[in-house]
């Protein structure tokens, strides 16, 4: 009995520290953020309740629709690349018989690079003049591309950076899932005359379906919050082609000091992300059951 008490006391001790941290750094700011969405504040006088005024200002801003459109485009492109590339990489890595540790490390390396550093390195590579990519293209006798300097290619250029920076984690998760597939399934498929593609489609994909779905949902939630790449590399340009929801939110808060409207926008984003998170929880619960 006495031992149980001592154990519980320790547990409560740890718990209280976590509770204080969550209360101060998560729950209070969250509650304050919800309130701010309906207030106008100057941090000198008492906040004034303004009803839906902040939301009305948002809806009247032409950049509001642009930001959501751009974010949807980034998310869609990031899924196409960020979903397919790591999966294919994992399949290839799973087939390798030599230097496996080396290749896994190489694939994971970009994840270890701080995001801002990665963005700055890519910014240099995208330089349409002496940048690495255009120098390589010209070396092959091809014309250079404007990359970040054109509204037509800027978003795709950011997606490439985000995919490159994040594919390591997804690849390792896929790899773990692939290694969990019993070898007999492949042997049976091979005996039935299935080629590489048919084995991939009829064995690998169904066996990793759950992991694929969970990562897909997590990726939607993460990519919709894209900020670092457009902030560091384009500031939303050219011609607003890379203004994302989070970048617009940041502008309202820290360029215009309009924390009310910024909070209103963050509430809208919360609702959208909340829907995807609910879906994610449903999927994982279903799998556990």
């Amino acid at each position: 009995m006495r031992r149980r008490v001592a154990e519980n006391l320790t547990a409560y001790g740890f718990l209280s520290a976590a509770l204080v941290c969550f209360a101060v750094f998560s729950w209070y700011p969250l509650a304050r953020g919800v309130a701010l969405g309906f207030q106008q504040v100057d941090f000198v006088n008492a906040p004034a309740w303004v009803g839906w005024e902040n939301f009305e200002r948002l809806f009247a801003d032409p950049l509001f629709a642009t930001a959501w459109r751009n974010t949807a485009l980034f998310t869609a492109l990031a899924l196409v690349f960020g979903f397919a590339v790591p999966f294919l990489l994992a399949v290839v890595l799973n087939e390798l018989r030599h230097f496996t540790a080396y290749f896994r490390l190489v694939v994971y390396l970009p994840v270890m690079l701080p995001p801002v550093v990665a963005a700055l390195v890519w910014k240099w590579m995208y330089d349409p003049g002496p940048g690495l990519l255009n120098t390589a293209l010209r070396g092959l006798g091809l014309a250079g591309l404007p990359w970040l300097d054109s509204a037509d290619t800027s978003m795709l250029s950011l997606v490439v950076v985000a995919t490159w920076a994040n594919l390591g984690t997804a690849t390792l998760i896929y790899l773990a899932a692939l290694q969990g597939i019993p070898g007999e399934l492949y042997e049976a498929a091979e005996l039935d005359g299935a080629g590489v593609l048919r084995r991939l489609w009829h064995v690998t994909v169904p066996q990793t379906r759950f992991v694929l779905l969970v990562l897909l949902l997590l990726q939607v939630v993460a990519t919709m919050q894209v900020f670092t790449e457009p902030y560091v590399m384009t500031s939303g340009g050219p011609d607003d082609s890379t203004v994302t929801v989070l970048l617009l939110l940041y502008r309202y808060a820290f360029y215009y000091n309009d924390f009310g409207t910024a909070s209103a926008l963050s509430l809208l984003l919360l609702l959208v992300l909340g829907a995807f998170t609910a879906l994610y929880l449903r999927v994982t619960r279903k799998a556990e059951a």
Partner: protein
Amino acid sequence: MNSFRLRRAAGLLLATGMGLTAVACSQGGDDAASNGKVTIVVNGLPPQTQAFDRKIFDEDVAEFEAANPDIDVEPREGFMDPQTFSAKLAGGQLEDVYYAYFTDPANIIARRQAADITEYVKDVPHYDAIRRELRDVFSADGKVYGVPTANYSMGLVYNRELFTRAGLDPDQPPKTWDEVREAARKITALGDNKVGFAEYSRDNQGGWHFTAWMYSVGGQIARRDGDKWVADFNNDKGREVLDHLKAMRWTDKTMGEKQLLVIEDVQQMMGAGQLGMYLAAPDNIPTLVNQFDGDYADYGLTAIPDAKGTLIGGEGYMVNPKASPEKIRAGLKWISWKYLNPDRIEKNLQRYKERGQPIGLPVPPAADIWTGDIADRQTRLKESLATMPVGNFKSYVDTKPTGKVEPPNAQQVYAVLDNVMQAVLTKPDADVAQLLADAEAKVNPVLAQVK
């Protein structure tokens, strides 16, 4: 029983934790007058990387405190950063006396985030000798909310060495935008990725420089229409500026391939000897020399091309809206002693000169904010104590275009105008007239918010 005790213990622990946090948050509060002294927290202390400027600041604090034993100055590093300003104010961390660029006072005043110092400013010596247009930046509706301490106007910084190599006379820098275009062609023709002229186009800096271009050709960004403000760039002047920029970028190809530049990118290009010219204030030259290990002799500064007007900017100090009357008085005493003190101009220049610092550029330690006798005396002193090739900046000093301040709601207006600059610099087929019309439609609602 045990369970109850445990819960109570956990509750106590939680409460203690919260209490500690609350106490920690409330530290650093008002300790003014606790020992008969008024303590003022001021920013503007240079970082440790700027050892010389920091030492000067520390010496000034010591001298001021010795002369004013009832005031204790607590210096903090940094300047007013719009991105952290509100958070500092909300968290009670905003200094009593804080630095502000000319871009920000209008919004700070509109948001009531600065103290009304109208009554106190009467005690600031020589306040009336400060240029009126600079004082107006910190005033609204007949009330004063801050004092200007430094001023600059936009000019054209150029690389004298590249000018010489391109067959241009570095002592005869371009006077018009057409001459800039011609010089840019010759510099770009040197090859090796040399860029004739560079321009900013993001982080609101594109809009800022579009404003400077507009002023230079005699245009403006906004005008008063009755009791409200309206956009005033969708006209011949606006088209003239953008057509010129477009021609340099796409016809002449003298502005380099890489766009979406900000000031740091352009300074880097200039510091690396890759760039011929860019629009900048004089304070860019010490930055180029210090950061890129350059030589003052290699850089020239001339007046903004066409010179029908120029954008003026600068800095000043404002007071925390929560400051007590004692702190406001002490804060203004510090500002007027350190930054607005005609009796210390000669001593400051001497002090800089003796320690090997450049004297002669139109930048601090002698701020260009005065009128009348004080301005004349300062000019004479700077000339007599000059330590650098002042001839390189002569055309900038001699040409005196009309200085115009930034438009109201400058940051929001610049955000819209950034797009105009980006479009012209990144789209070969940009429709200048359409861009200006679209920008006007976006800027007018922003200006309509100005009271």
